[in-house]
């Protein structure tokens, strides 16, 4: 079977699952719902594996497969900077090494999370609850949208997926819609994303205006021929890059549009794992990597990406240091890790960004699912201050989460070490890199190790602070939740071996070579040459240093949280203002409320006041006049109009009386009337 020809099945299958569960799910048993939801996702995963395997059989430079299914929007000819261009959008898919990585991550991790959800959401199934089928229908719709996003071969179709995942995110954040906070969080996510989407759309318009096409292949080929813009100037490519990146900051929760992601934790935990950690939020990174040619030709835009990524990484990590909700810690960690990925892209190391995207998908999905397992065990408790000493009560969850924590902290040989270390190395040594970008990354890494082990110590060690009511309910999760955890734990351990730095065992650059055809163009080759001269020793030294930094973070967390001691309290007391600022997330939500949300409301109020003062004033003034004229027209109505209406009614009645009289019911008179009609006809025809 030629899987490449059937890549359209990969997004279609989850859509079929979505359809069946969404339309008929209410009457399905749990097994049937599982069958459609999991079956479609598993088949989609298998199709992806088959397609990618066949892609890998091809020569590296031939690894682009385009499949145009049909012309979706034929809109005719438009004048662009590239001359007259035919605005025609295909519903087409593109499989190349980049989208190959993405579909494997999306379908693979997605399937595991589907399996996990059958356990986590099981209590939602029931005739009167009805949330179960709705959940899986949304989840499958998300899979369809995400796969459309990564497989699209043009910007417009990508935008369909982009909006689709946004919609599903909204639906799933607000899954428990009877909770006001969940509904509000859904709306917040949707509205904040709108701002980014406006940037995406403007970028898309500018791309068509500049290149006369929205097809990835055409745009990239034409962009590769464009001259590289001067660093510090804003040319058209820089403008495109920054506009697209604005879209990415919305979807991937970067400064300044990150505020929705922590609130998005109102959704069910599997949703947080799939959408708000492993896949959807990485769409921005994917998009920047997909358009790497444009960024490489716009150094200013790259610097923007790198700085925003780096600052977000350290900013979100610092908030994560002091949060008490287990999912919020992970949410800020996600924002921070996404910052790392953008940092990598911003310094021109796109393959490392994707590499970290992949490893992060493993260990962050695992962390969320593990957190879900903890919450499950504690009957819904999410506050770290009411956990503790769970290590022996839920050992499997503990072991898998520990693996993920070591991975995210960057301890070798776990997956996160390889990807994070490569990011730091590229930030330091790349042509676009800066020593201070590296420093930001290292400080963020220190914080990461600290807050993650704080989470581990507070959850699993120490004495139990669990509510006694809950205490005796504590139980390990069922196997359909644990097995996905274990698979992801294995991936978190070995996932980094696809790309090993040179100083370890001679190195292995399989992942870089796999993605090379996507990111290789004349402009990047110059950059690559610059990296070569950096020494192997420096790379090894920096790697060692970052490991030491991570261990320091772990040690600090151990000092503060492993044993009950007064150390953390003393530390907090001495740095009370800092703590307060961090605990309140730099007051960013309040600032946004004050600057934008309330100003928007003020605008509404002002318009309302204008309405009340000016317009209503006019209305009242005219009210008097109206009353006056009303009296006049009342008289007019009463005597003239009603008179006319009554005349009409009277006429109708008068007209219908003869009709009634004619309608005697006697056949004889009917026949007589017909004879009169016949005479009339004959007269009209013959005699007239």
């Amino acid at each position: 079977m030629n899987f490449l020809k059937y890549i359209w099945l990969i997004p279609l299958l989850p859509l079929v699952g979505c359809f069946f569960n969404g339309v008929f799910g209410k009457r399905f048993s749990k097994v049937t719902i599982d069958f459609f939801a999991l079956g479609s996702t598993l088949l989609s995963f298998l199709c992806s594996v088959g397609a990618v395997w066949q892609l890998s059989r091809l020569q590296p430079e031939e690894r682009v497969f385009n499949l145009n299914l049909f012309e979706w929007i034929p809109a005719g000819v438009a004048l662009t900077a590239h001359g007259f261009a035919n605005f025609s959008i295909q519903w087409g898919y593109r499989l190349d090494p980049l989208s190959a990585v993405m579909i494997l991550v999306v379908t693979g991790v997605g399937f595991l999370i589907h399996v996990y959800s059958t356990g986590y959401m099981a209590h939602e199934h029931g005739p009167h609850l009805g949330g179960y089928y709705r959940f899986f229908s949304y989840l499958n719709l998300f899979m369809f949208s995400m796969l459309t996003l990564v497989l699209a071969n043009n910007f417009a179709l990508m935008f369909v997926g982009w909006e689709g995942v946004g919609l599903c995110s909204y639906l799933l954040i607000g899954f428990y819609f009877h909770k006001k906070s969940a509904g509000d969080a859904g709306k917040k996510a949707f509205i904040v994303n709108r701002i980014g989407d406006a940037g995406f759309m403007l970028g898309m318009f500018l791309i068509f205006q500049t290149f006369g096409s929205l097809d990835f292949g055409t745009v990239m080929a034409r962009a590769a021929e464009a001259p590289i813009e001067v660093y510090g100037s804003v040319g058209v490519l820089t403008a495109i890059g920054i506009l697209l990146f604005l879209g990415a900051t919305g979807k991937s929760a970067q400064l300044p549009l990150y505020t929705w992601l922590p609130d998005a934790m109102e959704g069910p935990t599997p949703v947080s794992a799939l959408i708000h950690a492993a896949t959807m939020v990485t769409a921005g990174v994917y998009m920047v990597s997909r358009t790497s040619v444009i960024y490489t030709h716009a150094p200013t835009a790259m610097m923007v990406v790198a700085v925003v990524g780096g600052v977000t990484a350290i900013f979100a990590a610092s908030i994560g240091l002091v949060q008490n909700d287990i999912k919020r810690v992970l949410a800020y960690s996600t924002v921070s890790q996404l910052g790392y990925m953008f940092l990598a892209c911003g310094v021109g190391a796109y393959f490392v960004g994707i590499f970290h995207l992949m490893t992060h998908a493993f260990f962050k999905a695992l962390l969320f699912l593990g957190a879900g397992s903890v919450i499950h065990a504690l009957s819904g408790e999410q506050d770290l201050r009411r956990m503790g000493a769970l290590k022996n009560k839920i050992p499997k969850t503990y072991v898998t989460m520990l693996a993920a924590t070591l991975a995210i902290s960057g301890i070798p040989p776990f997956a996160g070490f390889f990807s994070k270390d490569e990011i730091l190395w590229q930030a330091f040594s790349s042509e676009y890199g800066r020593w201070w970008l590296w420093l930001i990354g290292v400080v963020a890494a220190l914080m990461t190790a600290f807050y993650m082990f704080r989470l581990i110590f507070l959850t699993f060690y120490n004495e139990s602070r669990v509510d006694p009511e809950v205490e005796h309910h504590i139980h390990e999760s069922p196997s359909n939740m644990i097995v996905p955890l274990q698979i992801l734990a294995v991936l978190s351990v070995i996932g980094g071996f696809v790309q090993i730095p040179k100083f370890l065992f001679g190195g292995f650059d399989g992942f870089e070579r796999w993605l090379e055809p996507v990111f290789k163009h004349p402009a990047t080759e110059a950059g690559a040459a610059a990296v070569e001269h950096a020494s192997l020793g420096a790379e090894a030294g920096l790697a060692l240093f970052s490991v030491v930094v991570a261990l320091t973070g772990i040690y600090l967390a151990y000092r503060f949280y492993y044993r009950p001691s007064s150390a953390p309290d003393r530390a907090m007391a001495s740095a009370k203002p800092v703590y307060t600022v961090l605990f309140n997330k730099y007051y960013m939500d309040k600032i946004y409320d004050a600057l934008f949300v309330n100003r928007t409301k003020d605008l509404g109020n002002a318009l309302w006041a204008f309405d009340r003062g000016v317009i209503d004033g006019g209305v009242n003034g005219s009210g008097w006049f109206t009353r006056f004229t009303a009296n006049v027209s009342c008289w007019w109505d009463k005597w003239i109009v009603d008179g006319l209406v009554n005349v009409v009614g009277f006429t109708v009645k008068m007209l219908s009386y003869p009709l009634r009289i004619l309608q005697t019911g006697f056949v004889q008179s009917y026949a007589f009337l017909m004879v009169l009609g016949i005479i009339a006809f004959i007269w009209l025809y013959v005699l007239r």
Partner: protein
Amino acid sequence: MTLPQVPILPILPELILTLFGIAVMLFDPFTAKPHKSWLSSLAFIGVLAALAGNVLLLAAEGEYYNGMIIVDSFSVFFNFLFLIIAGLSILASRQYLVREGVNHSEYYGLLLFATVGMCFMGGANELIMIFIGLEITSISTYVLAGFRRTDLKSNEAAIKYFLLGSFATAFLLYGIALMYGATHTTHLSQISSALLTGRIDLRLVLAGTALMMVGFSFKVATAPFQIWTPDVYEGAPIPVTGWMSVGPKAAGFAAFLRVFFVALPALDQKWFWVLWVSSVLTMTIGNTAAMLQSNIKRMLAYSSIAHAGYILVAFAALTPNGIASIMFYLLAYSVMNLGAFAVISAWSLSGERRVTIDEFAGLGYRQPWLAAAFTVFLLGLTGIPLTAGFTGKFFMFRAAINSKLYWLTIIALLNSAASLYYYLRPTIAMYMREPGESGRTSAPQDSAPLQISMATKVVIAVSVLAVFYLGLFPSTILDFAQSSAFLVH
């Protein structure tokens, strides 16, 4: 000895319907009473088979049997229309017949035979064939109108329709005879060419035309030959009324259009003014009288007169677009009216009680779906946008405007606006009045939960969908109608 080769394809739908009609009647004595409903299923299958046969006709265009029958897209369109009407009517009748205790298979047999006659009227290319088709239809209809044999009103309807119908048919036949006397042919296009030679007695032709128009006007119930309609429609069984108001009327228009546009185009300035006057009278009488009715069947009878008047507006346009819009409108009107009668049949009680407008009070709360569907049909009949009634009227009035018939169109629009008054009365009763407000006390069994059979539900659902489909996506049907209208014109 070799038998002459007779092509059966040109009359395949008619043959299928006849065979199934005979089969339904033959099986009746061998079917136990509780199982009689399967005979209606058999009749329905017959309609489906005839629909399939009709598809084959598309590939067999031409004149057959010495020019007596013509197969063109005009006749195929009308065959489709008649078969759809027959199918929906069969489904809509099942529950009613059982409830009224008249579940005899003759009903379905007659319905199929009447449809055979209607198909002949659409496909006839010659006056005698038209007459035969019309007679087959009429005789079946007379019997169907009196199908509730024990009910006086039903009997009255049948006998009135029979007497007056025979009377009118006689004039049609007399007209045909005069036409033959003048032109020495009954073949439509030969009449047309005979008229162009100028060597014929024009007075005979004109008298023949007048008398033929009398016959057709009676069939389609336009003024001044609409007088029988209210009494017959009120007395006939509800599903029969629904069927009569669309089926034989559409067949009458099919023959009316073909005869006048194929055989008599040379005289169009003569008959144009008769149409004009008849149209104004028909619309106005229909709408004015409908306003005063309290029985919903009678109200819809007058409404059907008014609709025939609107159709004459497009007829008077004398253009292919006018013909096409009439074809489209007949389809639109058929689904709206059949749906409305299906609702009435579902809501009425045995013995045809509960058929006054007042008795629809509170239906909106007791049967929200039924009331919503009824509202859709009534709004469609008014011609509110998004419904088939709007697009249909729009195309017809546009055809009239294109032929510069401004006054006629204005009168039609005023009439259409006035019709809202009576079409909204059941809606207001359904949603804004409490049951029993009118002072009638209802028997205890009347408030029993309503049982609506699956077949009736299907008819109502299909009609609602069709009303919206034709209202939103009219182009497929209209394009087909337009291509066939050019053939006739």
